[in-house]
């Protein structure tokens, strides 16, 4: 366990040093991240210009969901996607062998191999969105609510990471579909709305099959003090279960992997 933490720390330090070499890119990409937060906010502002409440959510409540969405999008596109896209590149070129030969867990090594630190701007923007939302609601969330939300955020990142690992595991079998990760990124866009926006079959799919509700809706409900304990426990267990499953599938795919160069 200690060793794993050391590996992660070293990996993180290397990726940050790598990214910080490109200072102009840092500024340009940072500005772009801000622009896209604005683009994300625009439809919501227009919708709530016509309605005080949509699917049982008021504007500030919906902003809390959007805040989690912006934060998680930053995590996904700032760390998970770039790193895992490198894995797919490794698989195609056959250089994954070098990663597998290293004396550390391969999943650990690939998961943080490339990060884009300017996506921290997304986290700052999410903080600002929360600020506006709770200012409009007129009260700050309680300590218990913040702690529960933090726990659920952990679960959300875990689920996000597991889905990404699952997608990459598919790449071992079908190298042709190396853009599958982009497909997931675009499906993740659905998580900007709370799950009650969807009805019928879609609501079931986005809660249980592709647990998007777990990513943004539940942490938002926790922060608003509206999450029932039963759902919270269920969500945390569900996330752990999902991560275990993803890990098992990753290990199975690694075993099936035959180098491209052989």
């Amino acid at each position, binding site marked *: 366990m200690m060793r794993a933490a050391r590996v992660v720390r070293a990996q993180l330090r290397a990726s940050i040093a790598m990214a910080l070499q490109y200072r102009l890119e840092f500024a340009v990409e940072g500005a772009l991240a801000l622009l896209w937060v604005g683009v994300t906010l625009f439809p*919501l502002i*227009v*919708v709530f210009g016509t309605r005080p409440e*949509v699917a049982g959510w008021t504007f500030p409540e919906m902003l809390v969901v959007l805040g989690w969405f912006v934060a998680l999008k930053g995590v996904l596109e700032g760390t998970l996607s770039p790193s895992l896209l490198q894995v797919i590149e490794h698989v195609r070129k056959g250089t994954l062998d070098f990663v597998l030969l290293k004396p550390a867990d391969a999943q650990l090594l690939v998961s943080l191999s490339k990060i884009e630190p300017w996506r921290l701007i997304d986290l700052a923007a999410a903080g600002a969105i929360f600020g506006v939302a709770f200012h409009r609601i007129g009260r700050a969330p309680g300590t218990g609510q913040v702690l529960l939300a933090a726990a659920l955020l952990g679960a959300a990142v875990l689920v996000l990471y597991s889905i990404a690992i699952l997608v990459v595991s598919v790449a071992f079998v079908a190298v042709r*579909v190396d853009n599958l990760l982009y497909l997931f990124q*675009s499906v993740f866009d*659905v998580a*900007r709305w709370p799950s009650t926006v969807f009805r019928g079959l879609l609501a079931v799919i986005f809660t249980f099959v592709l647990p998007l509700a777990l990513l943004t809706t539940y942490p938002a409900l926790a922060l608003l003090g509206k999450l029932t304990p039963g759902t919270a426990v269920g969500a945390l267990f569900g996330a752990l279960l999902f991560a275990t499953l993803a890990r098992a599938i990753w290990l199975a795919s690694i075993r099936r992997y035959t180098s491209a160069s052989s």
Partner: protein
Amino acid sequence: MTRILRLYPQLLRTGFAEAVAYRAEFLIWMFSTNMPLVMLAIWAAAARSGPVANYTQQGFAAYYLAALLVRLMTGAWVVWEMTMEIRQGTLGLRLLRPIHPLLQWSADNIAAIPMRGVVAIPVIGILLYVARSELSHDWFSWLLLCPALLGAWLLYFLVQAMIGTLALRFESAASLFDAWLGFSNVLSGYLVPLDLFPKAFRELAVVLPFRFQLSLPVELMLGRWSRIEALELLGAQWAYVLLFLVVTRAAWRSGLRHYAAYGG
């Protein structure tokens, strides 16, 4: 000119073969276009309690399905191809061929349209099934849709090519296109129909080129304009197309003087 006419069909055939060869990847790119459906979800939820402005739930379904259709049919990716080839130096090979590189890329992008059509067929089916009554009843509107779609595609392609030529001078041309895409998503009506915009935004959006790239063909499908208005808008769209054509050609010429191939 006759040489181009002789060579272009062959380029199209090659491009089509390429699109077929990478069909799995191609399909996934197409499926990644889901933003209109995401937006439809929130508006449909908002319209549960009654129409928003003059949009019912069905009206929103028609708008966003049409928007999805236009986006699927008028895709282009030339900016990424240009920036990559310029950086890697493979542009040199293209420059040696006896046909303008922009024409070569345009052939690749056009040749993918039949494949795009395959993905679009189910969308057309759903559109007809869900919201037939919302579509235009005037055949003239549908007649104008063809040049409007072509104009929309040309605008998208030319803007990409224009920004792509900047890669001959700067490193981060692709980032510039990303910024352009952000503005375009809002101002072209891709995320929110233009007639629901706050007034100030709307007045800005109707004069900028973005709307001609998506909103105009969608509005033609929904029969929003009278025949005269539609013709005027189509004229404005093609004026923008010509403008971008001239600018892109000039940018390409002056950019090429700065270009020094890498490798060797």
